[in-house]
């Protein structure tokens, strides 16, 4: 039973890792990465590592998406101000 759970979560993690790489737009990738972060936390819980799960939740659910989205916003803003310029 425990084994089935591990297999299910592992396959989901592998699937979402593939999806995260396949999304070529950084904003969409950030969405998949945040999903992957939460799923990894679930995998770590299943592998009996709650400490690592907490770490992954703290980082993956809000911090990494925020960093990526802020970078995306900065670059989009640059693009916009350059268009206005010339």
């Amino acid at each position, binding site marked *: 039973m425990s084994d089935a759970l591990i297999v299910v979560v592992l396959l989901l993690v592998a699937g979402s890792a593939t999806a995260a790489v396949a999304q070529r737009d950084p904003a969409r990738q950030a969405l998949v990465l945040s999903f992957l972060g939460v799923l990894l936390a679930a995998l770590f819980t299943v592998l009996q590592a*709650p*400490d690592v*799960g*907490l*770490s992954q*939740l*703290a*980082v993956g659910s*809000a*911090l990494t998406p*925020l*960093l990526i989205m*802020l*970078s995306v*916003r*900065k670059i989009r*803003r*640059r693009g916009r*101000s350059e268009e*206005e*310029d010339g």
Partner: protein
Amino acid sequence: MNRLRLWLLAVGGAGLAALLVAACLDLPGFGGSRHPYGDRAVRAALSRHTANTIASVNFDQRAYDTLGEMSILFAAVLGCVVLLREARDEHRARPEPADVARPVRRYALLVLPVALVTGLYVIAHGQLSPGGGFQGGVVAATALHLLYLGADYHALERVRPLGVYETTDALAVSSYLVLGAAGILAGTAFLANTLLPYGTFNTLSSGGTVPLLNAAIGMEVASAVVVLLAHFLDQAVEIEEEHGRGTP
């Protein structure tokens, strides 16, 4: 050129995949019962009255390793601060206040203290239950940014004197070093957990120096993340390049 690169990638990837699969088949089977290091680490943690073995490994048995991790973290934040500072050809533009729906704003302001307290709880119980300075620090720092999400950047800037957090970051790193050096002064080794009594098992003050090192890491991570996000937010929200100069 592009074709060549893809072929190179395919060949290299296939080779790496073959090697990895061969290595996987040779690894000890998943879920096996032989974990010599783990068993010894658990015994050592119990002998020092630390309920959370992972905290004991991080802040006692391998505290020196954590010092390395902490310096990487510190250096990475320093690098970000240098890379993202306001350059000469940039200026700050005050962002217009955001129009946030009222329930969202209320939720953010209500959850902010709850999340902060949770972060502190996770740090403080690091040596007992799952948690610790690394996790709790990130939670507490993220909680602060609910102010940006729920109100606007100006509100966040008012409760976030950046200088204080930069100082706290440096202070936390040096307090970790001082705690380590205290071991030498006490006549044992750097970062050896012999300074304080081990206390009663499964209470907040158990584990000798583990709670102190844990708290130092918590402070360091929290202020590091705040500083990091502050510079990213500055770049994304406030700093604009001067127009008409073009890129060099």
